[in-house]
């Protein structure tokens, strides 16, 4: 069952991309040294290992009398360097497991999901059960009875795709219900900014990102990072540590870097010339006040607004207070956002006087709070008031650059040819022809459930909404009406996931648990390498393995220094009885008599060749299949004409008629006609951007009555020492001060950042175990008392591994998403809200908790890595 080609003893080096974005798009390429079937080390690939630099036409940036020379090795983040710990993690699932009190022929006991334990079963038995259940569900409820979660972040594998392999099988059985992924990384941009400037598919500037690193170097005078951490977000995805290097160079060039965020994030810590602390999710107030200053003082580009902007008058009326009688002055804003009015004035003055680019990773908590559509589209409006697109004035995306823009152009038939954030390669190497998983671009099922309302839909059995929230859908989809179940179709009764992390990564994990225990869900199937998070709710768990145990092909085409194609040869034999996700589904297909249809008559090696052929390397005369097999990797040379590609939005700036944006008028629409037409009564997302204090759905401001009980605003970032839920068990990260806080009880708590003034008020000292709580539940953490956070705010990363003291109520592991808001971004925006909400912090009453829940504190625990597998393995107890 495991992949063919047993490893010979001896030493060898293989190549593996360590990007954890998944979807077959790779980055952070590494060399893996192996000896006698054991991984010795993981280290950066030096591009000039088997090629002379001249062969790949190395590039440089020259600006303001200085030169930037990109390093000749891949900028691996610590995730890649430490990845051995995941391959050999004590949480690896090594054989199939079945929940002890789930019997597909008898009692299923859904109420015990998350509580009852697991017994080992054979692959044969597991596959029989799985195939039997699929057949039964499809027969009884139709293929739509099966929900596939099908995609998420994780290892970037192509043939052995980590997510979505089940979609190919279910399509052969007549279809399935797709869990639609909301624009989780882009909420505000998708729901808000797209209405101002289009910029499909996600509303963050991706299509018009070519050569922006260079444009900033030459022309930008001030770089604002508002909801941006170039030192953290790129790590898990693309670009590794290259954005870090760019920021250091920008400082050398004298470009002023201003960070506007509640926490001194890791980028601000080393790059900020100015930190402007701001309360979570209050950016709109600051932005409105900046616009107020510009309008009142006439310090904006009036000529540009006349030719490039629609609806400025209505926007201006709101800003000046003509619409609601409240002028959005700096003093008004200061009370909302915690930034002193004089600082707002100085920012407005400097922004107007200096060529300013705003930079992001994806936006983070800035665009993942309640009403996130508003700060996102305000930002575009502010940029639009200062000549967006002129040299030095753009929106820079550190992580992806043009990547999704390239997908979008392909979809729109515009051809892929476009630049990259970094000097573009002659060809952008893509091996996706061999991708056997699913990404939202590929297709969209008719039967869908938005992930953000999955818990509600299971409980109620229906929904009736506008907009599917599918992150790759064009903006028009937000006006489309969707109902579930589809006419003539039934609800879901089986959940099949290869991305079991809703609990700690999505909205209201506690509600998700309740839904998992609903008897409507007759079968929950998990396939995953590690037994973490949602996995403990499964009825059957199948062990998939890591890419280091598989053969595959990879291509680095995120914005790193150089793009590569590489053969990812197997490093070690599969651990235990694990197989790749692709092989697992193939085995299930085999039981259903569909193996040849599923693998299309191809072996994994055949698929690897398909991927290589699709990359155009051989067709373009760049690299033959033979050469790739000899050298194992190929560095695509830099396009000698890279500098000629227009930078950022310069073409729109120069001629908005000739190069329009994809909005209905082709211009920047500060007032959106379509929003006015479709949602005239939507107070949370009006035709012009607004400050929304509260609504039926959300009441999370410091002005709220709730704030009397829950007086702190919580900010939750993309984690520093994880990629979402992954890597939470890496002992080497736990030893880092911001990694985990070891409590007085020896447990590794998730760090909770508090300002000394807030800690003192609550009698909390550094290292204390604290309880963060609101009406939705309680989450424990370890106090990190620091000046790296502003008063009034508590900071905790999302993604910590769930460890329930009381399932659905009290979590010890630090999974803050169990108590984040239940409701979506706003009434008509089914986005997630995972930051910018009220909590209170107090010293945890550990004695009280131990007295009340002794079993919760007696579970097996490893002092270095955390929860152990033993906890979930059935030992014959009652």
């Amino acid at each position, binding site marked *: 069952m495991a992949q063919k080609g047993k490893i010979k003893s001896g030493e060898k080096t293989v190549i593996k991309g360590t990007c954890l974005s998944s979807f077959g798009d790779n980055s952070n390429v590494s060399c893996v040294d192996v000896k006698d079937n054991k991984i*010795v*080390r*993981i*280290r*950066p690939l030096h591009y000039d290992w088997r090629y002379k630099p001249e062969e790949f036409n190395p590039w440089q940036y020259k600006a303001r009398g200085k030169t930037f020379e990109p*390093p000749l*090795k891949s*900028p*691996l*983040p*610590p995730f890649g*360097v*430490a990845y*051995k710990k995941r391959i050999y993690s004590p949480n690896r699932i090594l054989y199939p497991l079945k929940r002890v009190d789930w019997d597909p022929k008898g009692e299923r006991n859904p109420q015990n999901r998350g509580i009852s334990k697991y017994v080992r079963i054979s692959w044969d038995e597991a596959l029989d059960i799985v195939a039997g259940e699929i057949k039964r569900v499809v027969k009884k409820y139709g293929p739509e009875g099966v929900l596939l979660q099908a995609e998420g972040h994780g290892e970037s594998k192509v043939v052995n795709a980590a997510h979505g392999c089940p979609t190919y099988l279910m399509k052969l059985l007549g279809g399935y219900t797709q869990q639609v992924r909301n624009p989780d990384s882009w909420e505000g941009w998708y729901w808000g900014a797209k209405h101002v400037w289009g910029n499909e598919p996600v509303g963050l500037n991706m299509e018009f990102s070519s050569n922006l690193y260079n444009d900033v170097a030459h022309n930008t005078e001030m770089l604002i990072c508002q909801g941006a951490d170039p*030192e953290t977000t790129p*790590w898990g995805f693309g670009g*590794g*540590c*290259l954005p*870090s*290097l760019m920021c*250091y160079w920008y400082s050398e060039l004298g470009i002023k870097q201003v960070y506007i965020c509640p926490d*001194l994030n*890791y980028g601000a*810590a*080393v790059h*900020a010339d*100015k*930190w*402007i*602390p701001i309360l979570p999710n209050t950016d709109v107030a600051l932005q409105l006040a900046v616009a107020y200053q510009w309008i009142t003082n006439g310090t904006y580009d009036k000529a540009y607004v006349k030719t490039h902007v629609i609806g400025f008058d209505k926007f201006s009326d709101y800003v000046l207070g003509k619409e609601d009688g409240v002028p959005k002055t*700096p*003093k008004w804003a200061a009370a909302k956002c915690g930034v002193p*009015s*004089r*600082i707002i*004035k*100085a*920012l407005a*003055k*400097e922004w107007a006087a200096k060529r300013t680019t705003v930079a992001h990773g994806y936006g983070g908590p800035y665009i993942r709070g309640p009403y996130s559509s508003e700060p996102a589209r305000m930002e575009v409006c502010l940029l639009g008031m200062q000549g967006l697109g002129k040299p030095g004035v753009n929106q820079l995306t550190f992580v992806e650059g043009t990547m999704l823009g390239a997908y979008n152009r392909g979809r729109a038939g515009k051809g892929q040819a476009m630049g990259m954030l970094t000097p573009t390669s002659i060809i952008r190497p893509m091996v996706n022809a061999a991708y056997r998983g699913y990404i939202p671009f590929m297709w969209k099922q008719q039967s869908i459930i938005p992930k953000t309302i999955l818990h509600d839909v299971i409980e109620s059995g229906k929904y009736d909404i506008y907009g599917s929230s599918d992150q790759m859908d064009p903006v028009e989809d937000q006006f489309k009406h969707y109902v579930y179940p589809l006419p003539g179709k039934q609800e879901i009764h089986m959940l099949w996931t290869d991305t079991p992390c809703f609990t700690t990564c999505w909205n209201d994990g506690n509600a998700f648990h309740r839904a998992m225990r609903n008897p409507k869900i007759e079968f929950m199937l998990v396939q995953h390498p590690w037994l973490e998070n949602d996995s403990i709710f499964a009825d059957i768990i199948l062990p998939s393995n890591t890419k280091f145990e598989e053969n595959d092909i990879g291509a680095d085409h995120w914005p790193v220094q150089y793009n590569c194609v590489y053969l990812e040869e197997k490093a070690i034999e599969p651990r235990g009885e694990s197989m790749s996700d692709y092989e697992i589904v193939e085995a299930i297909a085999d039981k259903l008599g569909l193996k040849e249809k599923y693998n299309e008559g191809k072996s994994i090696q055949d698929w690897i060749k398909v991927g290589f052929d699709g990359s155009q390397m051989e067709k373009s005369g760049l690299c033959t299949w033979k050469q790739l097999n000899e050298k194992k990797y190929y560095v695509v040379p830099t396009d000698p004409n890279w500098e000629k590609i227009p930078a950022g939005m310069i073409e729109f700036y120069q001629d908005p008629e000739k190069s329009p944006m994809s909005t209905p008028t082709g211009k920047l629409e500060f007032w959106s006609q379509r929003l006015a037409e479709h949602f005239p009564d939507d107070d949370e997302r009006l035709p012009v951007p607004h400050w929304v204090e509260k609504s039926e759905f959300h009441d999370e401001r410091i002005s709220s009555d709730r704030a009397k009980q829950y007086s702190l605003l919580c900010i939750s970032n993309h984690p520093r020492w994880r990629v979402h839920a992954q890597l939470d068990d890496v*002992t*080497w*990260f*736990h*030893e*880092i*001060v*911001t990694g985990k806080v070891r409590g007085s009880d020896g447990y590794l708590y998730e760090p909770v950042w508090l*300002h000394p003034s807030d800690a003192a008020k609550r009698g909390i000292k550094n290292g204390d175990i604290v309880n963060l709580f609101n009406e939705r539940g309680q989450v424990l953490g370890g106090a990190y008392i*620091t*000046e*790296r*956070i*502003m*008063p009034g705010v508590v900071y905790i990363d999302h993604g910590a591994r769930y460890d329930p003291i009381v399932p659905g109520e009290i979590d010890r592991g630090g999974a803050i998403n169990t108590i984040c808001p239940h409701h979506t971004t706003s009434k008509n925006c089914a986005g997630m809200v995972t930051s910018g909400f009220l909590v209170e912090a107090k010293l945890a009453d550990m004695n009280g908790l131990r007295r009340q829940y002794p079993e919760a504190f007696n579970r097996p625990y490893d002092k*270095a890595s955390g929860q152990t597998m033993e906890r979930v393995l059935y030992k014959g107890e009652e």
Partner: protein
Amino acid sequence: MKVLVIDINKCNGCYNCQVACKDEHVGNDWTPIAKPQPDTGQFWMKVTDVVQGSVPKVRVRYMHDICQHCDDAPCIPACKAGSIYKREDGIVVIDPEKCTGARQCIDACPYKVIYFNSDLNISQKCTMCAHLLDKGWKEPRCVDACPTGALTFGEEADLKDLIAKAEILHPEYKVKPRVYYIGLLNKYFIAGAVYDPEADECLEGAMVTLTNTKNKKKSTLKTDVFGDFWFERQEPGKYSLVIEKAGYLSRKVESIDAVKDLNLGDFELYKKVA
């Protein structure tokens, strides 16, 4: 002879060096240079977050503690078993096969960079990955994994210019370390902001003069658009400060004690009345 130069100004706090060292030495046996270190608890390359200042004038810098491979290493004579030696390339090695676990080296080391492995009963520390250098590697793991160029390793003669910009840690120990630091965290910033509370505006262009009380040296800065001033890398000691702007009453601050990075806070200036 080899040297390591650590440029703290270029360190972004990624901890790659600390982690790469673990990747190399946990679970891997490099006898006769080094035996495996335990999974946790030892930090042959140790990174520490140093938080400077107070809200909103806060920075983080990262200190690196590592065996200094001293030319006059006190650990060598301290070891009664004679297990510690200095190679021709300058690297100091504790022979893991000769070590008797007596821990004299741990007591003798003034930099506190030697660790005790109680499972193997031996003392352990950084080896500059000598086992890799001997196989042809140009740099130890930490330097190879560093993405920003904060770590530089090589021949002392080749790195003369870089060394000239650097300093050693605790020169008073007098042990001739082979590790150099640029941007060592022994000087502090003194910062603050100036504003006009009546106009509710930051004051740009105010002249701020910092005087070292002991040696009377003066530094002058003009506040920026946010009214901010940052005096960088001041010697520890006592200072006084004067803030002046045409049309405003001056402010003076005495007894500033720079024992760490200081945010002096926000200073109000009031207009002179006629």
